[in-house]
């Protein structure tokens, strides 16, 4: 079944020069520490914590998000933290291209590759590394420090390997995220 057009209230969203569509009803902290590569949709109720960055003066990128990403409603993107040699600190998070994060998911991963789909109500633990071409099923809890290798499906609590993705995952997910961006149009 083809995705229907997803109309949005044009007064709610800000469209940037690079094609990002950011909801005014989302909470974006420390915007100067967040990089959006373009054509990324940030939906209503998202929280992006760019203010949680590595201690120290100067400019530091806390969250880098690639092209054609979707941050679903009420999802939370928060850089991971840990205490290293007695010093508490936050670490930067990197999200690749064509990543779709479902509603109500909380992401504290260290890095998420490209062509990744994260379902609804997921929790991606601290310093988890999700490689390219992966799917995290709905309601999955990826424990901290987990590495999700390419072409795998993870599900459950704690998230464990539950299946392999086909070889054309990259094209499939790329098409899906682009289709979503195309269909996400103002009313």
């Amino acid at each position, binding site marked *: 079944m*083809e995705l229907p057009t997803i109309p949005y209230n044009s007064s709610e969203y800000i469209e940037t020069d690079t094609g990002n569509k950011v909801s005014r009803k989302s909470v974006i902290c420390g915007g100067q520490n967040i990089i959006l590569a373009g054509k990324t949709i940030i939906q209503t109720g998202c929280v992006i914590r760019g203010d949680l960055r590595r201690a120290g003066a100067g400019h530091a990128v806390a969250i880098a998000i690639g092209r054609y990403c979707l941050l679903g409603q009420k999802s939370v993107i928060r850089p991971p933290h840990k205490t290293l040699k007695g010093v508490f600190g936050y670490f930067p998070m990197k999200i690749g291209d064509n990543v779709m994060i479902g509603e109500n998911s909380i992401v504290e991963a260290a890095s998420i590759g490209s062509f990744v789909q994260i379902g609804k109500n997921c929790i991606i633990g601290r310093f988890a590394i999700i490689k*390219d071409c992966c799917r995290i099923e709905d309601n999955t809890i990826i424990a901290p420090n987990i*590495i999700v290798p390419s072409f795998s499906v993870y599900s459950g609590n704690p998230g464990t390997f539950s299946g392999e993705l086909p070889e054309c995952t990259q094209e499939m997910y790329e098409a899906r995220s682009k289709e979503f961006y195309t269909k996400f149009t103002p009313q």
Partner: protein
Amino acid sequence: MPVLAATAPFVQYHCPCVPLQKPLPADDAEAPHGDSSDCPDNSSTQDERDEVTDPTPAQAPLDPQSMALLHHTHPLCNLYFCDDCLQVRCGRCVFDEITSYFCPNCLFEVPSASVKAEKNRCARNCFECPTCFHSLSVVEDQALITKAKAAQESSSHDDHGDDSASLSSASSTKAAAKGPIKPYYLQCSFCRWNSREIGWTFEKSTGLAGQTQAFESAQQPAKEFDHLRQHFEALMRANSHANATAAVGPGGVGTGLTLGLGLGSSPHASILSSLRQSFALGKATPGSPRTAVGGGLASPSPSLRSVGSLLSPSKDHTNDPPEPYQALHTVPDDPAIVSQLMTLESSDAVSCSSQRQRQPQTPSYLLAQHLPQRVGLRSKRAKRCRECRHILIKPEQKAQATRFKIKLVAMNFIPTITIVRNPTVYKVGRTHPFVLRFTNPQYRETRITLAVPVAYPNKSATITALAPTFKVGAYNDIWEYDPDASADEDPEDLGRSGPADEGIGDDDFDDWLAQIDTTLDYGYGCGPQLVPKYHPARADVTPDKQRRRYRRWLTRGVYERHANETAVILEATPGQPVDNLIVPLLVTFSYHLEPLTDDEGSESESPAKPSPEPHQLERECSFWVYINLGRVVTDV
């Protein structure tokens, strides 16, 4: 027969590896409503609604209501395409060849030579929690380290003043008395299980798999294995002394044991061969006293003479019969387990079946006896066509690479079919239009022909393709960047008012339009806006233009045409209420090959039909799809 539970609409592609149903009688397989049903053997029809040909009998479709359908059909993304056989290939009709092994946790590539020795598990630092299967992390006990340091310092203070030799000896004796400090242990960051519960602590934080070998070898099954091995080796020694005048053992169970335990040294191999020969002759002697492990003893006779002795066991009894094997460890019988479990106060200590499954050595009912397991390896696999051995998938060797050296997936060869417009509910006896979109992945314009079978098992609807033959534009990378460059107007239709237009009066048109407006329910709250894809709110759609579009829908059956996509209208008239209205459709696509282009040189050699023009080659392929349109209810 089990019937498919109600599912969301889908388009599934049939893989020809599973033979389709028995041939139908030829007169049954006639297309309805004058639709062209073009089979791949025929040349593609030029006229759209004239020619009616029977589908080849071998291609009669499956029963769409049976559960078997889901086993015979696949979503497009799971299929491959062999461009040598020009056939779709599914996971069942390809060979898998392992390209490389890697650990999913540390992503370290394991050389295939050491995979077997490491029992298909990671030989580095990767363990999984016996309780929740999360991967364990190495944690150091800081308190233990500081305590050990303090103790060391104090000891060096005490020994201060002695000569160096006595100092070293004193400290070494102290260390020996206390044993080496093992401050490292494994901890699960998810369920807080830690390996100190089972007494696993380590001196170093690296190479834990090597360090755990001590624990693993201390396990009963490992000990039993070694004991068994010793026993057999002793037997063999005795046997070689007796110089092959072998004592005859029962053999039967012993072979199974030996085989199962994989004792691969050459004397064992000779025993095995002799036993195998004895079995082949059907003269294996019946079993003798059985031991606790349930095994008899293999006859250790390294020469071929022993075969003779096996065949006539009563004659060659020169030696004493070997001692029966005494097991070190016996598996507790069921009453013992039951009584053990009955003393438990809470069920938390009992393992569940999935936990026991992950304990190959000691699948104990008590969770406390479970050990962390090394993480199992995963593999990257190349795939080959079973018919022609043509390689379809070849991944990169490296564990982290996601690229493929060769990737022949069906998605890049055959048209992708998606359901665009579909009524939420179908009603019996009414004609509902639905829209299918065909996306062409080829760099050439493709002609698609749809054929609807007339008769098939459990037929629940009559399908009419308003556009049985249509063209889909060539795929072009540029279109991806220019979504508005679409030609909504059909270039084929603009110039001509075909004969199809003439037979239709305005009344017919209005009837059809009224029907479409009432039945084409989009189901996602957008209302019945009949404006195509990329122009949901286009102001320049005048009523006249819109009317022309409706007319085109009705007369041409082409809903929308855009870049390499064409959406066509079909009509379904369900005959009975069903949960899933699944309809088979034979899709034939053909395109012209240009033999002169450089990169297509190889393709022009493959089987292709010569078209009327001698310099152009036409290639034609066909496949079955099964489209689930959704629920059918009785119209009340």
